[in-house]
């Protein structure tokens, strides 16, 4: 930790901390990475799993996974994207194990068809009143939730989302469109025609 203390912790980039950790195996460097990302990982786990206890365990497991695989991080994407992709995939795996027959994406649910294939503006989702948005997101299929989080919270590119979920870019574009339509339809079922930001 002494070496870390010489420089302000904020001055270290993620890549520097990773190389230092891999060189020295000094857990102080990994602790700095943990402090940088733990809040975000935990928030994603709560959003995906909708259970604080499960989210706590998942956050712990995700960080152990990150530590064990740090040597495989190739810097083809940013470290944050890599961390978030591990988090989303881990949460989707947990949901799959918990509920064997669950459908992950809207498109897997044959009965759901967006009324019109016209794109819903982003503002319809992003400006929804927070409590309502929270409830709407809880009703979304986990894959759709992950896609909307990646796009609107993590500001990930379509290409990056496609890489994380191992799908094509056009499939991701379609899924974003459907996820937005699904969110709108859930909102309408819950709150009728009340304006989104009342």
């Amino acid at each position, binding site marked *: 930790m002494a070496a870390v203390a010489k420089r302000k912790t904020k001055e270290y980039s993620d890549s520097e901390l990773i190389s230092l950790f891999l060189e020295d*195996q000094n*857990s102080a460097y*990994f*602790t700095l990475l*943990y*402090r940088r990302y*733990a*809040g*975000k990982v*935990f*928030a*994603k786990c*709560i*959003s995906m799993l909708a259970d*604080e206890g499960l989210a*706590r365990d998942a*956050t*712990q497991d995700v*960080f*152990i996974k990150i*530590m*064990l695989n740090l040597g495989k991080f190739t810097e083809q994407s940013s470290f944050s994207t890599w961390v978030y992709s591990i988090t989303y995939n881990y949460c989707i795996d947990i949901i799959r194990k918990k509920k064997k027959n669950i459908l992950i994406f809207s498109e897997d649910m044959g009965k759901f068809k967006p009324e019109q294939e016209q794109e819903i503006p*982003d*503002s319809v*989702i*992003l*400006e*929804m*009143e*927070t409590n309502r*948005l*929270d409830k709407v*997101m809880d009703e979304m299929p986990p894959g759709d939730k992950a896609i*909307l*989080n990646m796009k*609107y*919270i993590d500001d990930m590119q379509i290409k990056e989302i496609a890489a994380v979920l191992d799908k094509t870019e056009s499939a991701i574009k379609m899924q974003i469109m459907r996820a937005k339509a699904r969110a709108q339809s859930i909102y309408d079922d819950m709150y009728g025609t009340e304006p989104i*930001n009342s």
Partner: protein
Amino acid sequence: MNNNLKKLQEEREAMLPPELEERVSSQMGTMAFFGNLVELYVPNALQVVVRLVGGEDLPCLKKNRHREQKPIDWRIPPAPEPGLNFTDS
């Protein structure tokens, strides 16, 4: 444009339990300990098993082996060097 999804995320970030850091670092410590244990002792333990069944030394441990050196027997005097003569007469 507001982004209420980001607001929700920020609210949840604040809910991170502080004791989680302790849990993660103690698990990391345990894993490092077992990693070192495996690295230090597994090759030697394997070597013992290999010897017990009559096999040869593992290549990774051959360098460190000193057993093949002939032990010195201090009861036998060293051979006299040529040119020196210590007779009693």
